């Protein structure tokens, strides 16, 4: 690790100011960034920790009944505090990494990083959540722009994520055996106006919505409704843990299992 300066602002405004510095980098729980720095693959001049900002912490319900999670809330807190309002989201948070990861890693950090195998992007895209930053609101459908790429501007901070609570939802994760990130993860959410299906881990383009399955499930929310559907293997990740064809196959399996579990 190279030397760096460290700032731990107490408010979003202070954090935004600090992030305007030369080579400044926001630090959530550091579960990706710190190992990367230790390998000397990243060398920010200043790390701006977002974990000391009270307004970016915790889980609450807003007036519209949406579950609002502060951008610097660790997964373990989401697991505990969202359980009563949005069990599928709490369950997802409870299966990220291991206890150490869940007590350090944050929802904002995960979304800003947009690892193609991370779990949270599936929940956010699968619910059509709103990502609130220090400057604007971003719809989930506009946020994810491919592997490790998002709509966030330089220095922009995810302050909160607002999830509309579905009538029924489930997340199925088939783990990559070593990292236990999602080899394929599927979030299915049923709303009054339709069903959303988001897939993580599988695609070279990062998290994506499986619109064909959404249409079928919106008409008939049952595993049988998508029994004959499949995603093309061409754009799927192929690596030592599984071929593109295997991942494409798992998308179908995990989606059906998510639907079955949600009904």
């Amino acid at each position, binding site marked *: 690790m190279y030397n760096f300066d460290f700032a731990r602002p107490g408010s979003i405004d202070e954090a935004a100011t600090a992030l305007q510095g030369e080579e400044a980098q926001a630090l959530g729980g550091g579960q990706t960034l710190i190992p990367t720095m230790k390998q*000397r693959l990243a060398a920010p001049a200043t790390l701006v920790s977002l974990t000391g900002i009270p307004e970016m912490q915790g889980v609450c319900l807003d007036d519209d009944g949406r579950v609002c999670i502060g951008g610097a809330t660790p997964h373990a807190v989401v697991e505990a505090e969202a359980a009563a309002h949005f069990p599928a989201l709490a369950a997802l948070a409870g299966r990220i990494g291991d206890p150490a990861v869940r007590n350090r890693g944050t929802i904002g950090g995960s979304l800003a990083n947009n690892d193609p195998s991370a779990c949270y992007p599936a929940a956010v895209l699968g619910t059509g959540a709103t990502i609130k930053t220090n400057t604007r609101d971003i719809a989930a459908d506009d946020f994810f722009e491919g592997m490790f790429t998002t709509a966030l501007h330089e220095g922009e901070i995810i302050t909160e994520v607002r999830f509309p609570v579905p009538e029924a939802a489930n997340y199925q994760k088939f783990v990559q055996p*070593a990292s236990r990130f999602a080899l394929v993860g599927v979030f299915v959410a049923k709303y009054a106006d339709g069903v959303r299906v988001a897939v993580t881990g599988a695609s070279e383009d990062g998290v994506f919505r499986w619109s064909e399955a959404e249409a079928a499930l919106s008409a008939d929310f049952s595993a049988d409704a998508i029994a004959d559907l499949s995603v093309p293997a061409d754009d799927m990740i192929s690596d*030592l843990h599984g071929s593109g064809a*295997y991942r494409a196959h*798992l998308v179908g399996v995990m989606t059906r299992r998510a639907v079955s579990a949600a009904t």
Partner: protein
Amino acid sequence: MPKDSGIGASSKRREDLRFLTGEGRYTDDINLAGQAYVYFLRSDMAHARINRIDTSTAENMPGVLRVFTGADFEAVGGIPCGWQVTDRQGNPMQEPAHPVLARGKARHVGDPIAAVVAETYAQARNAAEAIEMDLDELPAVVDMKAALADDAPKVHDELDGNLCYDWGWIEDNKAATDAAFEAAAHVTTLELVNQRLVANPMEPRVAVGDYAKHSDESTLYTTSQNPHVIRLLMGAFVLGIPEHKLRVVAPDVGGGFGSKIFHYAEEAFCTFAAKQLRRPVKWTSTRSEAFISDAHGRDHVTRIELALDAENNFTAIRTETYANMGAYLSTFAPSVPTYLHGILMAGNYKTPNIYVNVKAVFTNTVPVDAYRGAGRPEATFQLERVIDKAARELGVDPVELRRQNFITEFPYATPVAVEYDTGDYNATMDKLLEMIDRDGFEARRAESARNGKLRGLGVNCYIEACGIAPSALVGQLGARAGLYESATVRVNATGGLVVMTGSHSHGQGHETSFAQVVADMIGIDESMVEIVHGDTANTPMGMGTYGSRSLAVGGSAMVRATEKIINKAKKIAAHLMEASEADIELKEGQFSVAGTDKSVAWGDVTLAAYVPHNYPIEEIEPGLEETAFYDPSNFTYPSGAYACEVEVDPETGKVQILSFAAADDFGNIVNPMIVDGQVHGGVAQGIGQALLEQAVYDENGQLVNASYMDYTMPRADDVPFYRVDHSCVTPCTHNPLGVKGCGEAGAIGSPPSVVNAVVDALQRAGHTHVTHIDMPLSPSRVWQAMQG
């Protein structure tokens, strides 16, 4: 009734108190005054010509003491290989130079090219980034068969191609074996890969070199399974330091699994640099470095054929194996695919004709050497897989096919030149079947099917050879070392004992089990016996711990030394009681005169030895300290039968192990709890190989999964609760304890039963085309196999 002390008791591991409370003293805990740190600049190319290394900028960086390159080591030797294999034509293997720091070429990713010593580790690492290297990347050879092509790039330019040796065992068997195949009623053939593994001990390697000017003495603190071997190899072959000027200390070591047997370049570097700089020099491996610098294990590609007659008797076994040596010959690398593999190819079966061919190959990869089991897992896996395949082809019960061919009379001389002294393979198989309720399997399978899962049962046997010996034989086979073990027993005046053993404990619990043996022999409390190991300054020359040899060989040396102590103590006791030595009996710490009520306590005798006022001084010397070296007359041959039951998710290919049972014959048992633990750990590693682990190189020689993000280690939820049994006992006939060794059995015996179980599950589900799946049986591979 289970015993509560001595041999046979499950005494709690005394060393665990310090390990579990953070009081262990590991090599990285050693920090010497004035210590400097080294960072190794390693090749990130698998094969490259080193045109120029410019260290001038780096040398002027803050805190830098000196930058070393290969040129600094021209005057010293290279890393030696400890075993020379002779090929089919009677010629010695090709043995390349292995410089401490690369000279001329870098030959694998991780090969150290330069080393920066600085006041701090960060300074050393910063300076390493300022080293300018002019390298030409060369085409890499990774695949073994490709490496043997005429036009393949050569890993070592000075050698004649990339073939290390082409070995036949036994060459005289070849014609008869080929003839037996001609005459066979049935031949089953299997091609398989025994994949490359990374040992991954919890504690990464560490070395601290020190030099004392006043005494001209060098000291190396290192994470080693065999400090005396390191002292000999490094002192005599690399640095030219005589043993009396070189001390090697291996304190608490956090697991080795073979990877800490070998002499590594970093050890020689730290010792050398400490003397050059007159400063202690420390290196602590990062986990990332461990992946590309610790010796790897396995990496065999094998074709095995089994011939049977019309009555399903095995008539011949023929194998051809390509064994990856990596870029250099690690310490015992050549012996693993040969004398730890070929000689075990008879397994538990009376097959009259066996011929084994092994081609060892250099590639641009990390060197491969012994890893828990070392050669024996590779032998067991192919044999037990091909037998299962044969049973399926012939439509016979795989257990009965094995039983029919079991060796039942001992001693048994195999066609591959070893003699099994004892064993009872039917007994362990009977025990196993008693443990697993085989008759109930069909009902369990039906239950799984109702839950949408495919259930399978796999069974296999294994035999291993532990305590490789005797020295005279292994010398003939090319070992450049003896394979005895040593112990010094020092009795103190007040009766306590210190046993200084040449064995080394790095997780095996020697401090407990060795103490049990000595305490039992004398009849004193275990707490009166202290086991000292790991420091060449205070232990006799020993060969260390690997190959499940410590109790069988090291324990035997300890028994012999303790017998000498008891014999001398009896003379003293006879003198004190004015009796004949022949009438003295030792029981529960009391010396008594047979047929009388006269006795003296152990402590009275030990005190007399050191305060010899009333003492047979004309007959014996004062003091009570004895040393013994024990050189076994044969290997020991633990054996057993293992079973695994799995469920396969037909939609995802995910394998879940539901139960695992192990029935082992380890001979006599000193500490049943420790033996259970050794089997548990071994099976976990075997399951790791069967389902999870594999070091994957791409065609450019890059290790694709060089971190835990992609290299899958077994976790608690990957393994079941084990059922283990070691009540079947045929004591070893040639060592005083009748013990055989248990450290590697689990890793040797478990992979075939896991794979047999998965193949069984798929076969029963109608995937009859699936006769084999190469390890690891990851979900994607199992799913792919089901797709046909």
